[in-house]
């Protein structure tokens, strides 16, 4: 199934760094998401958009998995050649991640 079935996601951007916050719709799924939605998988899934390192922060009190993605491809909102210069749509692209 797609991550979309279990989670909602918000993207943010600061310069050429993107943040992607993943939240389980049901708190009970947090442990499962923490197991399968790793920094490596996010990096691989969004390889076309993220050139640099992906760091995952775990925030069990919300609960949330917060990914900080460095070096967005043609990053930087002002000089990007992308249609979505902010990378706002990365949140929805991440929700297309196939999980088991």
């Amino acid at each position: 199934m797609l991550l979309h079935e279990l989670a909602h996601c918000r993207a943010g951007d600061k310069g050429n760094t993107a943040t992607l916050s993943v939240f389980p719709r049901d708190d009970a799924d947090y442990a499962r998401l923490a197991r399968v939605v790793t920094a490596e998988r996010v990096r691989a899934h969004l390889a076309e958009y993220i050139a640099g390192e992906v760091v995952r922060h775990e925030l069990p009190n919300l609960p949330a998995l917060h990914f900080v993605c460095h070096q967005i491809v043609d990053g930087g909102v002002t000089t990007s050649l992308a249609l979505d210069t902010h990378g706002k749509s990365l949140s929805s692209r991440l929700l297309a991640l196939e999980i088991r």
Partner: protein
Amino acid sequence: MHTTRIGCGAGFSGDRIEPAGDLLRRGALADLVLECLGERTVAQAQQRRLADPALGYERRLPARFTRLLPLAFSHGVRVITNMGAANPLAAGRVTASIMSTLGLSGRVAVVTGDDVLSEVDLDAPAWETGRPLREHGEIVSANAYLGADAVLPALVADVVITGRVADPSLFVAPLADRLGWDLDDVPSIAAGTLVGHLLECAGQLTGGYFADPGYQDVPDLHALGFPYADVSFDGTAALGKLPGTGGLLNRQTVREQLLYEITDPAAYLTPDVTLDVRGVRITDDTRISGARGTSRPETLKVSVGYRAGSKVEAEISYAGPNAAARGALAAEIVTRRLTGVPVRAEVLGGETDCRVRVAAISHDAALLDRVGDEVESLYTNGPAGGGGFRAHVTEVIGIASTTIPREAVRPSVTFLEVPGATA
């Protein structure tokens, strides 16, 4: 316990005006913040100021203030905004003139000092690239992110206009003013910064960036209401939106906004405090507590604008069976005709309805024209059935970031008095 109510009536330069009017009319606010200045918008404002020294403030300021200031004055709400953008003093003069025209008397305060172009070290490396700032191109602006300390002395006015101020600081200053917080009181300022961070994007907190039909339904999104917070002296806050407005304010929307643009949950740097959001608790969907902080950084962030040339974006559509393949062929043709030109060519959309988009940035105007021309000529020099060609060219101001020592930045406040009508 002493509380104060602060609202957010705009979260970006293109935001809707009606929800702010509603907050002024029915919200019983003490303060309304209009946050209209992003990295992108300050660059655009800089371009307008370069073209005309009387411009460079937020271009929607006249429309926004003409609608909102009469309501703010009649309901006694103080307004704080960064619509000064690249030219706060010009924004102050325009605001005073709008007030005069509307018959509103009062005091406008303009916060300046964020312009640090003559102080910033252009040999310093940019955060984004590691290369010296001056190597990025002709530098046109450098704006420091001022903090609540720069805004506080302006709060004796009815309308406060700033340029570049850290977004949460636009809220921290009036909260400190109303609640009697000392700006050195780290726990209180951390709490106020959290409130500012949650409110600063307006509708992003109340469901305006959340709806996903069938998965996350948001009621009456067409009538989205903007948020306010009731903030107590102890720093706890209750978030709200007005009864009868559309949107959604719950644990899901609040936690999305809580982490928005936070690159380190343990240390979100602002000019007022270093905020740690890891212990934040959301109870009953709208009650916020648990912000922690450590002392503010010794340096301020600076956004440096440089001329990055111009950007062309040219597009053409293909539809029907095999459209995506025709789109891919079109992209390949243009790329081959533009050999040596660094373009981005992509096919957007689905198998039976797609749009080919070609984009490039350059300082060479003739080259940008050529990119547009090569996409237009696909009409009769490319695949079957191309339609809907459009191209436009916009000047680009790039943004790079650096820091500046606090002592090199000297904020000040200019007051403009708008007298009442004399009989």
